[in-house]
């Protein structure tokens, strides 16, 4: 029973991690807070619904990543392109927040505010497997697997490829990077594409799990991922991954001990305490130094 809950928490945590990774990528590289991110995460579920009615699940995964990424590009173009200086950090956060409002409203006009149920899952995902006396759907392992693949892909993209080198250079200092001939605009587009793609992917996985897409999870689930990112350290990818998994497991444990009603609050209390004691987050290594952004 307990192990079962922990595994459930791990699956939840994997999705938190994906969304938090997207936040942290943009903060770490471009030093901007993207409030449209939670809404793109929410929209991922609806993309999943549409694509699953026409395509098999693996293709739907790819489609949701691409659609999410495209939306990320649009976000960058509308809400961030004009606010590049470090002075306009908060202006950019506000404009992305406004864009998020428009976004949610459009989704709610089309699909309504009620959860929309997903088309039936293919048979190979419906099976269950028995572990420690609890039945697990294959779906959970599928979600964990997809998350692992995405994280490994992201890690190798950042650390092994040419584009990754550019991204790290921009994270270090955009001005120096542009002096070295790196196209900062291109890099920021790539970062937005990847981060929003990850968010949409997480939204799709969540809707697979709950068998429905909900237009109101953006603010709750998405903001929680923002908090997780802050706990791990702004701009620290490892912190976002571990923080997500950790919060998922802690929440599962709270449910086991019958404290389920305090779940919403735990993560934010941890954030406030972290911010008071160690504003740089729990992990100190990061894409960019703390002093450079303060």
């Amino acid at each position, binding site marked *: 029973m307990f192990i079962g809950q922990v595994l459930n928490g791990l699956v939840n945590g994997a999705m938190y991690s994906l969304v938090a990774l997207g936040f942290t990528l943009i903060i770490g590289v471009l030093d901007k807070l993207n409030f449209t991110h939670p809404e793109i995460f929410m929209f991922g579920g609806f993309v999943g619904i549409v694509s699953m009615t026409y395509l098999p699940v693996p293709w739907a995964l790819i489609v949701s990543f691409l659609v999410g990424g495209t939306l990320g590009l649009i976000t960058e173009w509308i809400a961030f392109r004009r606010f590049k200086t470090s002075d306009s950090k908060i*202006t950019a956060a506000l404009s992305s927040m406004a*864009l*998020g409002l428009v976004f949610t409203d459009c989704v709610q006009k089309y699909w309504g505010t009620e959860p929309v149920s997903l088309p039936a899952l293919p048979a190979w995902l419906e099976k269950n497997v028995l572990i420690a006396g609890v039945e697990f759907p294959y779906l959970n392992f599928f979600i964990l697997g997809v998350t692992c693949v995405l994280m490994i892909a992201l890690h190798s993209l950042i650390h092994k490829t040419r584009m990754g080198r550019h991204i790290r250079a921009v994270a270090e200092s955009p001005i120096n990077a542009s002096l070295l001939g790196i196209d900062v605009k291109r890099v920021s587009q790539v970062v937005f594409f990847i981060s929003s793609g990850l968010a949409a992917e997480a939204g799709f996985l969540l809707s697979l799990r709950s068998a429905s897409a909900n237009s109101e999870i953006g*603010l709750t689930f998405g903001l929680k991922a923002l908090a997780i990112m802050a706990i791990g350290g*702004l701009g620290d990818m490892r912190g976002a991954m571990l923080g997500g998994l950790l919060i998922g497991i802690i929440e599962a444990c709270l449910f086991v001990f019958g404290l389920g009603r305090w779940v919403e609050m735990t993560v934010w209390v941890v954030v406030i305490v972290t*911010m008071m004691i160690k504003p740089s987050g729990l992990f100190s290594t990061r894409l960019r130094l703390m002093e450079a952004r303060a």
Partner: protein
Amino acid sequence: MIADHLFFACINILLAWSVYVVLLSGNLSFAQGAFMALGCYCAGVLTVKFNFSLFPAVLLAGGFSSLVALAVGYPTVKLKGIYLILVTLGLTVCVRVLLENFKFIGGVGGFGGMTGADLSSVLIAVFIFGVLLYWFSRGSLQRVCDTVREDELVAASLGIDVVATKLLTFAVGAFIAGIAGALYGHYMNFVRPENFDVLLSIYVVLYVVLGGVNNMWGPVLGALIMTLLPEYFRILAEWRPSIFGLSILLILLVRPNGILRFRLPTLKDKGSFPHE
């Protein structure tokens, strides 16, 4: 009907001012919804459970909110930009969950029984705070806030206590929000924790951004437009979040640095530069 609309417009004006006051020293607070909730519940408990009359209850509620703001604000106002946004967002969520979990004040089901507030009481509140803010904007304290907002290092070098100034504006903002919450609760007769959602805090900040932060009339304008217009134009009511979001985007795009950068009257027209 029209009294209803005016009442909510006035509440929103008070909330927008509370954001504006915090913004005076350069902090953007997403916790005004939380302080409103605290004020509302505090005043409600005082009038319903302890038979206070409305006026002292409302004042005590404002005081309670600002006390909480002082306690939370002391370690957090030193944080900048994104960090402070995160902490204040967290505060809003925490207060809501806390309210949902106390049986004494009704929990998730809500808390009811407050009566007594009407349009005239909230109009009086708006008038009093308007006069106070106007007086404040003429005084030397405004200059202190301006200095802290524009450059903390300069302010500190002039002997201004930066943390105290930020804390003061944070507490005053919470006081206004608390009073707005108390009046709101006593007008609605029944409130639930979900009335004070994160979205409320976000909206209030955006009212101020929409109206402009150059002076105290900007927040009033933003709150009035966004509260009253949707009541009379059907299309505005249906597409409210979209139109709201688009107009904010438009304003920010047209004046990328202007909206959160105050335009100091002393710098703008040289004639009125005070040469004391």
